[in-house]
């Protein structure tokens, strides 16, 4: 390759003389306006304005007033005899000619481009019949990676924190003479539980970002948009909207940030509003728990049905939004480069995995930790009965009073008990807290007993943690063949939670007037659709502004309430 020496970096691109003359005039005219001269490189601004960039023109006119309009109109008029309506074409063409001249000096290209490996891969991957099955298979692998493969590690993190780590904290406090105090309760039930709520996400997110990094860095993501655009366009979205939607099955937060890959604001907001209907992985533990209690034989089917319901609701809401809030905004054009395939580098993949997961940890830790402590505090504060601080029956706590106050909202849906409304309240802050709150509201006593069981020493604990990691890796590896072999496994039944199961069952039966299973189904649909967690809401505000954040918060609550009402009251009408 030969290096090309440019005479002067500032004068790299030269346009034809008539254009250069007008550019000079424009630069002089624009330079006379300080507000513009400070803000923009003037030659660049002049080129953009001549080319017809309407957004930039509006900005320049706003800063510079009618002088800009007049100068531009005069230049255009003088150029009209040379280029007519095609001034923009001439500018682009001359730029490309310049690039071409440089490239010819530096590059030798074969006369007929050879059929590259990239082309051969494309022939298969975008094949008429194979394209969509390959796409769906890859999405399935991503989904399984973030669920089944990550699950053993999630369990390991959870077991480590609730077992040995809680044990150490208790032992340390006991040695300091604070055993059984409110401080121990705060540390174990508030802080460690809160940190656990964040850390259990790490394996899931690492798996998700691993898959995404492979798809993006290899170049497949553009093909996915190419293959899916017809379908997504029919839904009023963009082929690129599919990526945030898939990410949404992992977590709404990165999914909302992933809408940045879309070019038009309309597509970004529309996609961002629909993303939370994709059932995020934090909701999965709720499904697993409730489905295992009420529908043990069809748990897999119920969970799969919920995911499907989310997709259908997103489609329906998308159509509604397109005809209402987005009525005057046509879809953006689909103009997308399909880059050559590249082999992702381990370093690049790891960096994306780590940076994105770390960003989540930074954003989520404070919020989730704070909620855990607030919930602990509400649970610790006695408002009735004779309990002391940090030693009060849950039904006499401040938390029960608050939950009871909002419970009537959920009564028509079949789950008007304070225990479930309390879980939904904390679920606004983070969906994964729903299960732990249910555990606290229904069965605090049992869980505490479990934590105190089986005294061990520090060394045994460390061995246990290491052994747990090894067996988690083993479990994850065992799941891998299933990822490729497409088998839907039913979730394992939680034997440790039998006490909780009985309490939850009794609670739903009582709040629904004997239609416990139906109320549980309505509860699951509600959890699927209602207001996304606080972190996702914060992401939506960051990306789309406060107005759209409120649309998301209120809109989804209403949608979820109506859908759960339909399930419960509809089911009862059908005689369930």
């Amino acid at each position, binding site marked *: 390759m030969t290096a090309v020496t440019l005479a002067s970096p500032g004068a790299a691109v030269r346009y034809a003389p008539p254009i250069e003359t007008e550019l000079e005039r424009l630069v002089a005219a624009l330079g006379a306006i300080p507000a513009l001269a400070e803000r923009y490189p003037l030659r660049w601004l002049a080129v953009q304005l001549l*080319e*017809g*960039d*309407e957004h930039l023109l509006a900005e320049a006119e706003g800063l510079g007033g009618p002088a800009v309009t007049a100068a531009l109109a005069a230049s255009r008029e003088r150029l009209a005899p040379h280029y007519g309506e*095609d001034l*923009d*074409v001439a500018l*682009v*063409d001359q730029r*490309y000619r310049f690039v071409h001249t440089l490239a010819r000096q530096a590059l030798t*290209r074969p006369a007929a*481009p050879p059929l590259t490996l990239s082309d051969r891969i*494309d022939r298969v991957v*975008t*094949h*008429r*019949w194979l*394209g*969509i099955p390959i796409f769906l298979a890859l999405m399935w692998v991503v989904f399984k990676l973030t669920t089944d493969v990550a699950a053993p590690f999630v369990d390991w993190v959870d077991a480590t924190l609730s077992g040995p780590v809680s044990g150490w904290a208790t032992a340390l406090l006991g040695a300091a003479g604070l055993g059984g105090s409110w401080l121990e309760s705060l540390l174990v039930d508030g802080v460690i539980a809160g940190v656990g709520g964040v850390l259990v996400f790490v394996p899931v997110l690492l798996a998700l970002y691993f898959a995404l990094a492979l798809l993006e860095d290899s170049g497949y993501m*553009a093909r996915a*948009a*190419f*293959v899916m*655009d*017809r*379908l997504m*366009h029919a839904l009023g979205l963009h*082929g690129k909207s599919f990526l945030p939607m898939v990410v949404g099955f992992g977590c709404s937060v990165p999914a909302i940030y992933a809408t940045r890959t879309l070019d038009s604001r309309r597509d970004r907001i529309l996609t961002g509003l629909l993303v939370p209907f994709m059932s995020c992985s934090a909701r999965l533990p709720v499904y697993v728990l409730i489905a295992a209690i009420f529908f043990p034989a069809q748990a897999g089917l119920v969970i799969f049905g919920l995911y499907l319901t989310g997709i259908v609701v997103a489609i329906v809401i998308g159509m509604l939004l397109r005809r209402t809030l987005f009525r005057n905004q046509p879809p953006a*054009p*689909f*103009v*997308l*480069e*399909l*880059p050559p395939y590249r082999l992702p580098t381990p370093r690049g993949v790891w960096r994306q995995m780590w940076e994105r997961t770390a960003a989540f940890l930074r954003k989520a830790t404070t919020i989730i930790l704070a909620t855990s402590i607030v919930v602990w505090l509400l649970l610790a504060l006695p408002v009735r009965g004779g309990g002391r601080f940090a030693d009060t029956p849950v039904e006499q706590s401040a938390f029960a009073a608050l939950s009871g106050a909002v419970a009537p909202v959920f009564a028509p849906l079949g789950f008007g008990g304070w225990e479930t409304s309390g879980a939904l309240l904390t679920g606004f802050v983070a969906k994964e807290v729903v299960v732990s709150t249910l555990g606290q509201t229904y069965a605090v006593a049992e869980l505490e007993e479990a934590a105190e069981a089986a005294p061990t020493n520090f060394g045994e604990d460390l061995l246990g943690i290491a052994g747990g990691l090894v067996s988690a890796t083993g479990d994850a590896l065992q799941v891998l063949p299933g990822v490729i072999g497409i088998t839907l496994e039913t979730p394992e039944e939680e034997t440790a939670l039998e006490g909780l199961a009985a309490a939850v069952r009794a609670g739903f039966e009582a709040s629904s007037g004997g239609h416990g299973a139906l109320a549980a189904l309505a509860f699951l649909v509600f959890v699927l659709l209602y207001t996304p967690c606080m972190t996702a809401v914060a992401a939506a505000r960051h990306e789309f502004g406060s107005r759209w954040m409120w649309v998301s918060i209120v809109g989804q609550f209403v949608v979820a309430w109506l859908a759960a009402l339909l399930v419960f009251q509809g089911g009862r009408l059908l005689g369930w």
Partner: protein
Amino acid sequence: MSVSEVTLDQLARNQNAVVRRIGGDREFRRRLLAMGLVPGEQVILTAVAPLGDPIEVTVKGYRLSLRKEEARLVVVERA
């Protein structure tokens, strides 16, 4: 439109053509120009997505994908 002029979406697979004009609104035209669909440029329709839309063309040695409704705004002359 002369006899050999068609719109980009009407090309057969692997057919060569030369870009003549780009219609649509100014923003769309700027976008396509920036992506290299400049009048006088050679294009080949290289692929069609499994569901029949969008299409993929090779221009300036790289692959560009666009919807048929957008390709209809690009007038080309069959080689």
